[in-house]
Protein backbone atom coordinates (compact mmCIF):
# COMPACT_ATOMS: atom_id res chain seq x y z
CA UNK A 1 0.00 0.00 0.00
CA UNK A 2 1.38 3.34 -1.01
CA UNK A 3 1.34 6.29 1.29
CA UNK A 4 -1.55 8.57 0.62
CA UNK A 5 -3.90 5.77 -0.35
CA UNK A 6 -6.78 5.46 2.03
CA UNK A 7 -6.52 2.39 4.19
CA UNK A 8 -9.23 -0.04 4.99
CA UNK A 9 -10.25 1.63 8.24
CA UNK A 10 -10.32 5.07 6.69
CA UNK A 11 -12.55 3.97 3.85
CA UNK A 12 -14.84 2.08 6.19
CA UNK A 13 -15.10 5.11 8.46
CA UNK A 14 -15.69 7.31 5.45
CA UNK A 15 -18.46 5.00 4.27
CA UNK A 16 -20.03 4.94 7.73
CA UNK A 17 -19.94 8.72 7.92
CA UNK A 18 -21.50 9.00 4.47
CA UNK A 19 -24.18 6.56 5.49
CA UNK A 20 -24.88 8.53 8.64
CA UNK A 21 -24.91 11.86 6.86
CA UNK A 22 -27.18 10.70 4.11
CA UNK A 23 -29.71 9.21 6.48
CA UNK A 24 -29.87 11.97 9.02
CA UNK A 25 -30.28 15.23 7.18
CA UNK A 26 -31.64 17.82 9.57
CA UNK A 27 -33.01 20.79 7.64
CA UNK A 28 -32.98 24.37 8.80
CA UNK A 29 -36.35 25.97 9.55
CA UNK A 30 -35.99 28.55 6.86
CA UNK A 31 -38.97 29.42 4.74
CA UNK A 32 -38.83 32.38 2.44
CA UNK A 33 -41.98 32.35 0.37
CA UNK A 34 -44.52 30.15 -1.37
CA UNK A 35 -42.32 27.07 -1.44
CA UNK A 36 -42.07 27.16 2.35
CA UNK A 37 -45.68 26.04 2.57
CA UNK A 38 -44.86 23.01 0.45
CA UNK A 39 -41.79 22.47 2.63
CA UNK A 40 -44.15 22.38 5.60
CA UNK A 41 -46.35 19.96 3.67
CA UNK A 42 -43.32 17.70 3.25
CA UNK A 43 -42.98 17.70 7.01
CA UNK A 44 -46.69 17.00 7.48
CA UNK A 45 -48.41 13.66 7.68
CA UNK A 46 -49.18 13.00 4.03
CA UNK A 47 -45.63 12.90 2.74
CA UNK A 48 -43.73 12.62 6.01
CA UNK A 49 -40.09 13.36 5.44
CA UNK A 50 -39.33 11.74 8.81
CA UNK A 51 -39.18 8.40 7.01
CA UNK A 52 -35.78 9.53 5.76
CA UNK A 53 -34.75 10.71 9.20
CA UNK A 54 -35.12 14.37 8.32
CA UNK A 55 -38.02 15.45 10.47
CA UNK A 56 -35.95 17.32 13.01
CA UNK A 57 -36.19 20.85 11.66
CA UNK A 58 -33.65 22.77 13.71
CA UNK A 59 -34.17 26.48 13.90
CA UNK A 60 -30.57 27.23 14.78
CA UNK A 61 -28.27 27.05 11.75
CA UNK A 62 -25.55 25.69 14.01
CA UNK A 63 -27.36 22.40 14.34
CA UNK A 64 -28.67 21.85 10.86
CA UNK A 65 -27.15 20.09 7.88
CA UNK A 66 -29.43 21.09 5.06
CA UNK A 67 -30.68 24.46 3.98
CA UNK A 68 -33.75 24.24 1.81
CA UNK A 69 -33.89 27.63 0.17
CA UNK A 70 -37.64 27.68 -0.26
CA UNK A 71 -38.77 30.80 -2.01
CA UNK A 72 -37.54 33.84 -3.86
CA UNK A 73 -34.24 35.23 -2.66
CA UNK A 74 -34.34 38.99 -2.96
CA UNK A 75 -31.30 41.19 -2.95
CA UNK A 76 -32.13 42.38 0.52
CA UNK A 77 -32.32 38.80 1.73
CA UNK A 78 -29.26 37.48 -0.11
CA UNK A 79 -26.64 38.68 2.44
CA UNK A 80 -28.67 37.00 5.18
CA UNK A 81 -28.84 33.76 3.23
CA UNK A 82 -25.09 33.93 2.85
CA UNK A 83 -24.65 34.58 6.54
CA UNK A 84 -26.93 31.70 7.50
CA UNK A 85 -25.01 29.44 5.16
CA UNK A 86 -21.75 30.55 6.75
CA UNK A 87 -23.14 29.83 10.20
CA UNK A 88 -23.87 26.22 9.36
CA UNK A 89 -21.16 23.68 10.19
CA UNK A 90 -19.58 21.46 7.58
CA UNK A 91 -20.65 19.20 5.95
CA UNK A 92 -23.59 21.29 4.80
CA UNK A 93 -25.91 20.93 1.88
CA UNK A 94 -28.22 23.27 0.02
CA UNK A 95 -31.33 22.44 -1.92
CA UNK A 96 -32.63 25.13 -4.23
CA UNK A 97 -36.36 24.64 -4.17
CA UNK A 98 -38.50 26.21 -6.81
CA UNK A 99 -37.73 28.11 -9.96
CA UNK A 100 -37.36 31.47 -8.19
CA UNK A 101 -34.29 30.11 -6.46
CA UNK A 102 -32.94 28.36 -9.52
CA UNK A 103 -33.01 31.14 -12.09
CA UNK A 104 -35.41 33.79 -10.90
CA UNK A 105 -38.63 32.16 -12.00
CA UNK A 106 -41.57 34.48 -12.56
CA UNK A 107 -39.58 37.40 -11.15
CA UNK A 108 -36.74 37.00 -13.62
CA UNK A 109 -37.27 40.55 -14.92
CA UNK A 110 -37.59 42.19 -11.54
CA UNK A 111 -35.15 44.70 -10.16
CA UNK A 112 -34.69 43.29 -6.68
CA UNK A 113 -34.61 39.54 -7.20
CA UNK A 114 -31.45 37.45 -7.16
CA UNK A 115 -31.51 35.34 -10.30
CA UNK A 116 -30.57 32.08 -8.73
CA UNK A 117 -29.34 31.46 -5.23
CA UNK A 118 -26.24 29.75 -6.65
CA UNK A 119 -24.85 33.24 -7.25
CA UNK A 120 -24.71 33.61 -3.48
CA UNK A 121 -24.10 30.14 -2.04
CA UNK A 122 -23.19 26.79 -3.61
CA UNK A 123 -26.17 24.56 -4.35
CA UNK A 124 -26.21 20.77 -4.32
CA UNK A 125 -29.59 19.89 -5.72
CA UNK A 126 -32.02 21.93 -7.80
CA UNK A 127 -35.69 21.07 -7.55
CA UNK A 128 -37.64 22.89 -10.28
CA UNK A 129 -41.34 23.60 -10.09
CA UNK A 130 -43.44 26.50 -8.96
CA UNK A 131 -43.80 25.30 -6.35
CA UNK A 132 -42.49 21.72 -6.51
CA UNK A 133 -45.01 19.30 -5.10
CA UNK A 134 -44.03 17.67 -1.80
CA UNK A 135 -43.26 14.50 -3.73
CA UNK A 136 -40.92 16.43 -6.01
CA UNK A 137 -39.08 17.84 -3.00
CA UNK A 138 -38.88 14.36 -1.51
CA UNK A 139 -37.34 13.24 -4.79
CA UNK A 140 -34.90 16.11 -4.47
CA UNK A 141 -33.92 15.01 -0.97
CA UNK A 142 -33.45 11.47 -2.26
CA UNK A 143 -31.23 12.87 -4.99
CA UNK A 144 -29.22 14.64 -2.32
CA UNK A 145 -28.89 11.38 -0.36
CA UNK A 146 -27.56 9.71 -3.50
CA UNK A 147 -25.14 12.57 -4.00
CA UNK A 148 -23.86 12.30 -0.43
CA UNK A 149 -23.32 8.59 -0.85
CA UNK A 150 -21.40 9.27 -4.04
CA UNK A 151 -23.81 7.51 -6.35
CA UNK A 152 -24.59 8.62 -9.86
CA UNK A 153 -26.96 11.53 -10.08
CA UNK A 154 -28.25 13.51 -12.97
Amino acid at each position, binding site marked *: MKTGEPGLITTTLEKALEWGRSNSIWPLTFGLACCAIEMMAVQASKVDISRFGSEIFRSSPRQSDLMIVAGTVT*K*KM*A*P*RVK*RLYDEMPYPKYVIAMGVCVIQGGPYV*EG*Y*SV*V*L*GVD*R*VIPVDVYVPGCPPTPEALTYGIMTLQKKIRGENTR
Partner: protein
Amino acid sequence: MEFQPGEEKGKDGRKIIKVKKEDLLSTLESLKKKGFNHLSLITGVDRKDYIEVVYHLHSFESNEYVVVKTVTYNSKVPSVTHLWKSADWDEREEYDLMGIEFEGHPDLRRLFLPQNWVGHPLRKDYNMKNVQYINMDEDGEDYATFDPGDGW
Protein backbone atom coordinates in the same frame (compact mmCIF):
# COMPACT_ATOMS: atom_id res chain seq x y z
CA MET B 1 -55.60 65.79 -20.37
CA GLU B 2 -55.73 68.72 -18.05
CA PHE B 3 -56.47 68.08 -14.39
CA GLN B 4 -59.74 69.68 -13.32
CA PRO B 5 -60.89 69.81 -9.70
CA GLY B 6 -64.39 68.45 -9.26
CA GLU B 7 -66.41 65.32 -8.69
CA GLU B 8 -67.11 62.44 -10.99
CA LYS B 9 -68.11 58.80 -10.96
CA GLY B 10 -65.49 56.17 -11.72
CA LYS B 11 -65.83 53.11 -13.91
CA ASP B 12 -66.46 51.01 -10.82
CA GLY B 13 -69.17 53.32 -9.51
CA ARG B 14 -67.11 54.99 -6.80
CA LYS B 15 -67.28 58.70 -6.14
CA ILE B 16 -64.05 60.43 -7.13
CA ILE B 17 -63.26 63.86 -5.68
CA LYS B 18 -60.51 65.67 -7.55
CA VAL B 19 -58.81 68.42 -5.61
CA LYS B 20 -55.83 70.66 -6.03
CA LYS B 21 -52.79 69.85 -3.97
CA GLU B 22 -53.32 72.96 -1.84
CA ASP B 23 -56.85 71.86 -0.91
CA LEU B 24 -55.93 68.26 -0.23
CA LEU B 25 -55.40 68.49 3.52
CA SER B 26 -58.56 70.51 4.15
CA THR B 27 -60.63 68.14 2.02
CA LEU B 28 -59.30 65.08 3.80
CA GLU B 29 -59.77 66.71 7.19
CA SER B 30 -63.39 67.50 6.46
CA LEU B 31 -63.92 63.98 5.15
CA LYS B 32 -62.44 62.55 8.31
CA LYS B 33 -64.81 64.69 10.33
CA LYS B 34 -67.67 63.28 8.28
CA GLY B 35 -66.75 59.81 9.53
CA PHE B 36 -64.32 58.48 6.96
CA ASN B 37 -62.10 56.94 9.60
CA HIS B 38 -60.50 54.24 7.50
CA LEU B 39 -57.80 55.30 5.07
CA SER B 40 -57.63 52.23 2.91
CA LEU B 41 -54.93 52.96 0.41
CA ILE B 42 -52.61 55.63 -0.90
CA THR B 43 -51.57 55.20 -4.50
CA GLY B 44 -49.21 57.10 -6.71
CA VAL B 45 -49.66 56.87 -10.46
CA ASP B 46 -46.80 58.10 -12.56
CA ARG B 47 -48.29 59.94 -15.52
CA LYS B 48 -44.82 60.80 -16.88
CA ASP B 49 -45.01 64.60 -16.47
CA TYR B 50 -46.92 64.59 -13.21
CA ILE B 51 -47.82 62.17 -10.46
CA GLU B 52 -51.36 61.41 -9.46
CA VAL B 53 -51.89 60.64 -5.79
CA VAL B 54 -55.05 58.73 -5.00
CA TYR B 55 -56.55 58.26 -1.53
CA HIS B 56 -59.16 55.60 -0.93
CA LEU B 57 -61.31 56.43 2.08
CA HIS B 58 -63.97 54.39 3.72
CA SER B 59 -66.38 54.91 6.55
CA PHE B 60 -67.29 51.98 8.77
CA GLU B 61 -70.40 53.68 10.15
CA SER B 62 -72.14 54.63 6.93
CA ASN B 63 -70.35 52.09 4.72
CA GLU B 64 -69.55 54.78 2.15
CA TYR B 65 -66.56 54.84 -0.10
CA VAL B 66 -64.85 57.83 -1.58
CA VAL B 67 -61.75 58.34 -3.71
CA VAL B 68 -59.76 61.55 -3.43
CA LYS B 69 -57.38 62.42 -6.20
CA THR B 70 -54.74 65.07 -6.52
CA VAL B 71 -51.78 65.73 -8.74
CA THR B 72 -48.30 66.90 -7.99
CA TYR B 73 -45.75 68.21 -10.44
CA ASN B 74 -42.78 68.32 -8.06
CA SER B 75 -43.55 64.94 -6.41
CA LYS B 76 -44.27 66.59 -3.08
CA VAL B 77 -47.52 66.05 -1.21
CA PRO B 78 -48.49 66.94 2.37
CA SER B 79 -48.50 63.95 4.69
CA VAL B 80 -51.70 62.76 6.33
CA THR B 81 -50.12 60.69 9.09
CA HIS B 82 -51.59 63.00 11.72
CA LEU B 83 -55.08 62.12 10.49
CA TRP B 84 -54.71 58.37 10.03
CA LYS B 85 -51.90 56.25 11.44
CA SER B 86 -52.37 53.78 8.62
CA ALA B 87 -50.97 56.40 6.27
CA ASP B 88 -47.56 55.91 7.86
CA TRP B 89 -46.43 52.78 6.06
CA ASP B 90 -48.44 53.56 2.93
CA GLU B 91 -46.59 56.85 2.55
CA ARG B 92 -43.28 55.20 3.24
CA GLU B 93 -44.05 52.62 0.59
CA GLU B 94 -45.03 55.22 -1.98
CA TYR B 95 -41.91 57.19 -1.16
CA ASP B 96 -39.87 54.05 -1.58
CA LEU B 97 -41.27 52.84 -4.86
CA MET B 98 -42.74 55.94 -6.45
CA GLY B 99 -40.61 58.70 -5.06
CA ILE B 100 -43.38 60.90 -3.70
CA GLU B 101 -42.10 63.02 -0.83
CA PHE B 102 -44.70 63.38 1.86
CA GLU B 103 -44.01 66.63 3.65
CA GLY B 104 -44.43 66.36 7.38
CA HIS B 105 -44.09 62.59 7.62
CA PRO B 106 -42.33 61.79 10.91
CA ASP B 107 -40.09 59.03 9.61
CA LEU B 108 -39.85 59.07 5.84
CA ARG B 109 -37.53 56.16 5.06
CA ARG B 110 -37.70 53.46 2.47
CA LEU B 111 -39.95 50.61 3.52
CA PHE B 112 -39.02 47.75 1.23
CA LEU B 113 -35.74 48.60 -0.43
CA PRO B 114 -32.47 49.38 1.34
CA GLN B 115 -31.92 52.91 2.46
CA ASN B 116 -29.55 54.11 -0.24
CA TRP B 117 -31.10 52.38 -3.21
CA VAL B 118 -30.83 54.59 -6.25
CA GLY B 119 -34.06 55.51 -8.01
CA HIS B 120 -37.70 54.74 -7.46
CA PRO B 121 -38.62 51.58 -9.35
CA LEU B 122 -42.29 52.25 -10.06
CA ARG B 123 -41.46 55.43 -11.96
CA LYS B 124 -41.88 54.90 -15.65
CA ASP B 125 -38.39 56.20 -16.35
CA TYR B 126 -36.67 53.81 -13.94
CA ASN B 127 -33.94 51.92 -15.73
CA MET B 128 -34.39 48.22 -15.00
CA LYS B 129 -31.03 47.43 -16.58
CA ASN B 130 -29.05 49.03 -13.80
CA VAL B 131 -28.12 46.37 -11.30
CA GLN B 132 -27.63 47.27 -7.68
CA TYR B 133 -25.93 45.06 -5.16
CA ILE B 134 -26.90 44.92 -1.54
CA ASN B 135 -24.56 44.29 1.33
CA MET B 136 -24.77 44.38 5.08
CA ASP B 137 -22.76 46.64 7.32
CA GLU B 138 -21.49 45.64 10.76
CA ASP B 139 -24.81 46.37 12.44
CA GLY B 140 -26.67 44.12 10.07
CA GLU B 141 -28.32 47.00 8.21
CA ASP B 142 -28.40 46.85 4.46
CA TYR B 143 -26.89 49.29 2.08
CA ALA B 144 -26.94 49.21 -1.67
CA THR B 145 -24.02 49.64 -3.98
CA PHE B 146 -24.60 50.65 -7.55
CA ASP B 147 -23.10 48.53 -10.25
CA PRO B 148 -23.99 48.85 -13.91
CA GLY B 149 -22.19 45.62 -14.76
CA ASP B 150 -23.60 42.15 -14.47
CA GLY B 151 -24.97 41.31 -11.08
CA TRP B 152 -26.99 38.81 -9.17
